[in-house]
């Protein structure tokens, strides 16, 4: 094959490869879709309301949430009460002692 003829032949080969790639890209998904369509889901015999489905085993969240918040409140209030009680006891003793000192008693 002469020089110009070979160049034309190479161009034809490149065009053929390009056309092949384009066909694969375009037809590929269609082929997949066709494959999917080849296995249709079985037709429904009846409609079932969602309320009639089996209950799914699931842990309720509300008791856990309430338990968490109740614990936080109890812990903080309990701690505040404990400081208040200790402070009250110390201040009472302090007051009694300083009163005795002022009175000059034992």
């Amino acid at each position: 094959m002469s020089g110009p003829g070979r160049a034309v032949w190479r161009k034809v080969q490149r065009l053929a490869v390009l056309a092949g790639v384009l066909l694969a890209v375009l037809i590929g998904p269609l082929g997949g879709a066709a494959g999917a369509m080849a296995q249709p889901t079985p037709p429904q015999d009846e409609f079932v309301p969602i309320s009639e489905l089996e209950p799914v085993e699931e842990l309720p969240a509300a008791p856990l949430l309430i338990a968490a918040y109740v614990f936080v409140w109890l812990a903080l209030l309990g701690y505040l009460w404990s400081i208040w009680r200790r402070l009250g006891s110390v201040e009472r003793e302090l007051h009694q002692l300083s009163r005795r000192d002022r009175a000059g008693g034992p």
Partner: protein
Amino acid sequence: MTRRLFAPMLAVAAVMFAIAPVLIARAPYESTMGLVQKIFYFHVPAGIVMFAAALVCGISSALFLARGRLEHDRRALAAGELTVIFGTIMLVTGPLWARKAWGVWWQWEARLTSTLVLTLIFVAYLLLRRYGGPGSERLGAVLAVFGMVNVPFVYWSVNVWRTMHPRTTVVPTLDPSMRPAFWWCMVAFFVLFGGLLTLRVRLEEQRAALDRLWLAREEAEVRS
């Protein structure tokens, strides 16, 4: 001035805690965890306050070791107690959340284990201060500094190790609809922390005043 700050701080915290459930109820459900994710609004602020309390305890202890002033020791003791309180809140609310979100109460993973260890260090600090006898305040101060050093490890553990716990990026990237409830609770917890810390320091000051009074009486009896 700071001695009397606890009353207004606790009053503000009480009002904020009363309003918090309304804001939390208004916040939307998280897409994967649903209702139980709302534990987040108390769990995370309690955790951040626990870190703050541990830092206050550690820094005050370091100042006490360096300068020997008793006011630093009193603040350290008060903050140490608050670290255990807020650590316990975190360690109880976390498993309640995990039971629903992960299907288990507890996992021996980096964040949970390191938080437990941090809380136990401060429990040890309190036990040492309670039963350690004379001189335990300096040993306790060293332990508190050791505990404080753990805080950054606990905070970054979720980013460094592979863990089930949500990462630290959750808070900065929080959805705008969830932010009001979260930041409200965060401020409420910090105001409460300030009030409790001030009140607890006052208790230590009054105890010290009582000790001084007893000591003065004994000295007077010895002289007479």
